[in-house]
């Protein structure tokens, strides 16, 4: 009986976390360069199984070895890196990527990846995001762009009249599972020991000046997901109520003297 509480409880907690993730997607349907997140869940008995018998998973079945205690918990938050639609603004500092890859920005001593190209300049005329992170060129340095007459070609090379201002650093990860979201909503490369974790895009990706990339959130899908999660939450809570009733009976009526 007590086990039932944990099962239903874990279901409720996990569905709430799913609702948070879906809610985050829904409110960010207008954020430039936003990539929607999906929360994958797993059940504990499967998890325990994998940890105990890493190499022998096929030979064991959950119920025989572990028992029927099933706890569901959030396992992974994966980002969908599908291309968002491009919107024209004809603003010189707006940029979008058509194809795979990320802009690289600097925050403190960390290099972060982003698809948000709605750039501006800071008080020292360095190209940066409105939240202050400076955009880096192929040498890993910030770029000074005090004049709005500059042009960026499809390879990311910046020219202002006849003077060259460098090229934007555009990179993509060799393994998308090795980048994760940071606190500020950017992506960061986790595989710091691997030199080839981030590679250039070599002509496969175009940089479009005067455009920004729309969020790739599909509102219809997110609405369905949040309704699903809400109902699942309700079902788990009903289950919990029933288990509560049964336990009550056990405690108060059985074995009454």
């Amino acid at each position: 009986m007590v086990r039932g509480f944990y099962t239903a409880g874990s279901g409720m907690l996990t569905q709430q976390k799913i609702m948070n993730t879906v809610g985050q997607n829904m409110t960010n349907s207008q954020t430039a360069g936003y990539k929607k997140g999906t929360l994958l869940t797993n059940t504990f008995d499967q998890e325990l199984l994998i940890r105990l018998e890493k190499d022998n998973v096929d030979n064991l079945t959950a119920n025989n070895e572990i028992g029927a205690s099933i706890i569901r918990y959030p396992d992974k938050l994966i980002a969908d890196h599908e291309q968002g639609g491009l919107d024209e603004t004809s603003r010189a500092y707006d940029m979008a990527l058509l194809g795979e890859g990320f802009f690289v920005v600097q925050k403190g001593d960390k290099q972060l990846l982003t698809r948000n190209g709605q750039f501006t300049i800071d008080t020292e005329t360095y190209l940066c995001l409105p939240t202050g992170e400076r955009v880096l060129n192929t040498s890993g340095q910030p770029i000074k762009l005090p004049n709005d007459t500059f042009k960026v070609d499809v390879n990311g090379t910046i020219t202002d009249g006849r003077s060259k201002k460098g090229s934007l650093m555009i990179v993509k990860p060799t393994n998308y599972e090795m980048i994760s979201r940071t606190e500020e909503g950017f992506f960061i490369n986790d595989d710091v020991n691997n030199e080839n974790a981030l590679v250039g895009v070599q002509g496969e990706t175009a940089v479009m000046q005067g455009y920004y990339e729309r969020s790739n959130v599909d509102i219809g899908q997110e609405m369905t997901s949040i309704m699903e999660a809400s109902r699942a939450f309700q079902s788990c809570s009903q289950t919990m109520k029933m288990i509560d009733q049964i336990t009550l009976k056990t405690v108060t009526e059985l074995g009454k003297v």
Partner: protein
Amino acid sequence: MNTTFRIGSSGLKYHQKNLDVIGNNIANVNTYGFKTERMSFSSQLYTSMQGNPRPAQDAERTGEPLIEGQDIMTGHGVRTASVDTLFEQGAPYSTDNPMDYAIVGEGMFGLLTGSGEKRYTRTGNFIISMEGNKPFLKTTQGDYVTDTKGKKIQVPYKSGGEIDFSKLSPSIGIFVFPNKYALEQAGGNTYVETIQSGKAIPADGKKANRPEILQSFLEGSSVDISRQMVDLIVAQKAFQFSAKVVQVGDEVEQIVNSLR
């Protein structure tokens, strides 16, 4: 639980602000010299969901190196990153008023307010205002129009009492900026320069060319009404969906409170 509310309410707050920006654009569809604005969003701070302590424990068991950052992060909604002005050329409209001027190309008229502040504008419907017995060129809001050196313009008259436009028109100062996108709105269709915009450069042919100035024309609003209507509908939907998120958060709270 609280997180769902916060996410939804951040959506409500900032999409409402977006509606304000778009509404302002639509209201100014007939304002001469008006430049469309847009709001850019950014997602809010992410915190760890702490749903899975696995990475650290896995690393202990297997002896493999711990990969940082594989924690599950949940965002806290959306916020405004900036409100940007899109400087698109508006179509010039012909008026029969020789005191109306429109700029075709880059540049702005320079203004001096009564308190001595420098402002800039694209709206060129000027008037003559007498001070003592001297006629000065001013805007309808009372700011002085300046020449390329930043001084007030005294309107020159011909011997017959008519305004000498051949001397007046070239004396009106036009200024360009290194980065016009960073100009700050100062109200009344005027802008002030900022550090990011760079200092105003007089377009007198030396550092910058004087753009084409049309007399008896006014530059129309750069608002594209069909685009703004679409943006309005999209922003409204975004607001509605944020409201749905708050609703779901509320339902969850209700269910939890009715558990026992």
